[in-house]
């Protein structure tokens, strides 16, 4: 080949691109060992422990205890939110700077475990504490343990007892037909009967899918199962509520702002146990006067979505023993109770069932009593892609003219394509 300026430049260009691509793809590795003493400087990425209170709880109380136990480990905390967690992890992986310990959501373990980005944990950690039976399920992939639960965030229905009494309604709805009738009955004077939309639409629809006897994927995560009539009916139910005027997509509230049930603009809403803490802070009279009640959504079966935050260890940590020690410590009853209290979440350990916090927060109590009806999202290695598609694909059916059947079929097609790419 003749060596001229053009050919040299072309070779340099191709070489650079190849080197860059090779560098980009260095994420895969096997699970790291955690032998040796726990020492070194590690980073924790967390989407919880929000605000000044959360920071104080984590850095002073929880990590204070950890420092006493492991004085040779220094923990740097990288705070983020669930909205930005994906970006943090993606950029961390691309730049080879993935934090040593990561907190992530339910459904996130299979995608990262399948790609060997997180380390497998020893099975004995699953029995280190008295976990509720199904609490550890979202922490597993392919039968192996990859994470430990920190807090659970269940999805339940909260209602206004005073609105029910006003309308002469004596019992909470036992199925969707009753729920629709009650919502219609409670819709009056500018108030909507039911607000299912103030939580993430994805999680809301999933709860209805589970309550209708449906499921998202096959147990091996390779088949889409939500495209049957149960998934369509779950979406159609939202359309029916909107048609009745007893639910309004435009009247959803943002996270952290007073919810429609708190302000009296709705009589029922889908929410999490965190609403108890929020109401106590923003409308203490509602709690003191016992105006808030809660129940588990039911149709073909009762169902409660079990979300939450799990703690896991990066596969390529430079200090695996220190990272493992932190994972274990963040999953101890003391750490869990603090995080649950701060967020209004559900602790998944039986050891904590008798604590004052669990007894005081009625929504947490209801969630713990119904953990046998809990279902989790995810279950496929393609979840990170599919979870982003659910809301924008289902939304047109609720706010537009698209049928529930078409929207679910479209979502099914997208999910199958995502699984096919794995």
């Amino acid at each position, binding site marked *: 080949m003749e060596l001229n300026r053009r050919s040299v430049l072309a070779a340099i260009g191709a070489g650079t691109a190849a080197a860059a691509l090779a560098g980009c793809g260095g994420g*895969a590795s096997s699970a790291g060992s955690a032998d040796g003493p726990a020492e070194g400087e590690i980073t924790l990425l967390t989407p919880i422990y929000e605000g000044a209170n959360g920071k104080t709880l984590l850095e002073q109380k929880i990590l204070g205890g950890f420092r006493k136990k492991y004085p040779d480990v220094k923990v740097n905390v990288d705070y983020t939110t669930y909205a930005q967690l994906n970006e943090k992890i993606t950029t961390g992986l691309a730049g080879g700077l993935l934090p040593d310990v990561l907190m992530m959501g339910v459904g996130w373990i299979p995608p990262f475990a399948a790609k060997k*980005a997180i380390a497998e944990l020893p099975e004995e950690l699953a029995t280190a504490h008295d976990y509720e039976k199904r609490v550890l399920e979202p922490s597993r992939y392919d039968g192996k343990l990859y994470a430990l639960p920190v807090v659970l965030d269940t999805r339940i229905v909260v209602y206004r007892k005073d609105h029910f009494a006003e309308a002469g309604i004596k019992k909470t709805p036992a199925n969707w037909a009753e729920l629709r009738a009650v919502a219609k009955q409670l819709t009056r004077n500018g108030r909507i009967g039911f607000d299912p939309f103030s939580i993430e639409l994805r999680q809301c629809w999933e709860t209805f899918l589970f309550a209708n006897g449906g499921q998202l994927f096959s147990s091996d995560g390779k088949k889409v199962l939500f495209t049957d009539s149960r998934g369509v009916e779950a979406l159609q139910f939202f359309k029916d509520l909107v048609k009745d005027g007893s639910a309004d997509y435009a009247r959803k509230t943002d996270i952290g702002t007073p919810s429609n049930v708190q302000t009296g603009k709705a009589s029922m809403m889908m929410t999490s146990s965190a609403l108890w803490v929020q109401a106590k802070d923003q409308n203490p009279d509602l709690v003191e006067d016992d105006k808030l009640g809660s129940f588990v959504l039911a149709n073909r079966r009762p169902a409660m979505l079990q979300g939450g935050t799990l703690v896991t260890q990066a596969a390529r940590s430079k200090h695996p023993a220190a990272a493992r020690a932190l994972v274990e410590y963040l999953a101890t009853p003391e750490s869990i109770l603090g995080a649950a209290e701060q967020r209004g979440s559900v602790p998944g350990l039986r050891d904590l069932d008798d604590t004052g916090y669990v007894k005081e927060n009625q929504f947490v109590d209801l969630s713990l009593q119904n953990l046998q009806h809990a279902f989790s999202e995810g279950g496929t290695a393609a979840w990170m892609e599919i979870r982003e598609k659910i809301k924008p694909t289902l939304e047109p059916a609720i706010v537009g003219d698209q049928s529930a059947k078409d929207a679910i079929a479209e979502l099914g097609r997208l999910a199958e394509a995502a699984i096919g790419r794995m």
Partner: protein
Amino acid sequence: MGATTVVKARPARPPSPPEAPAARRTGRVRSGPGSRRRRAGMLMVAPALLHASLWIGLPVMVSVALAFTKYDVLTAPEFVGLANFRDMLDDAVFRKSIVNTLLYTFFTVPFGMALGLLVALALHTGLKARGVFRTAVFLPQVTATVAIALVWLWIYNPGNGLLNTLLSFLGIDGPAWLSSTTWALPSVILVGIWQGIGMKMLIYLAALQSLPKELYEAASVDGASRVRQFFSITLPLLKPATFFVLITSMISAFQSFDQIYILTDGGPANSTTMMTYEIYKSAFREFRVGYASAQSLVLFVLLMGFTLVNKRIMGGSRGHN
């Protein structure tokens, strides 16, 4: 800036010393003042060239290469040929994002330019306290979009927002601006127009201030009205500035991201999603970096196409010497 070329006569260039025949043949000049100047010039542009190669050239090359791969950050890229582009043809949301981006550009660019020119003309005519007005108009340009979007979130709040409160005084029940598939995109477009006026105004103002006064004096003597002067002198002389504003505004509109991210998250029902937002979602939320690179390539080609068409229509940024 283009406007400068309109009025400033170019200084006469000193004649270059004749090159030796051998040097002309090889294209190299080994010595002499010309060679030294060239070397000094190269030395001065070298940092910028190095920066551009490293931080623009290399990522562009990698991005183009990744467009033909399946790459999820976690595992090494795998060559898939044109599969990403085929997937894009089936991607209804990406098609919707192209339509939304074109609509957003179609409304924000001309309206923003017209308003920017109007404000610049007002400030050019010797308005009192024009410094204050200029700052006020330019302020959105230098304010973080996050802060701006938070203010607009409150303005658009259907319950207690400024807009619906004002409408209620007129007896109008305002919609849920950002939650309605009908109103969300126009609401985002309005924010885009408002935010972009400052920069357009500034460029037009600079161009207006450099226009030759003699032409206006001559036109006045000939009895041309102010309107006639505007259409016959000002607008033609502003052509290079208009071209510059048009191109930069279009690029900026095609790259709009922040306001979508904060105001609507692309919703409801994808009614406000844009190409850049879809690229971001593919890469950072869905871990489809190869697909996102292919989407970026489409955005690049679209932008390049529009720029060339505009250049053709407007005759580029040639001055009117």
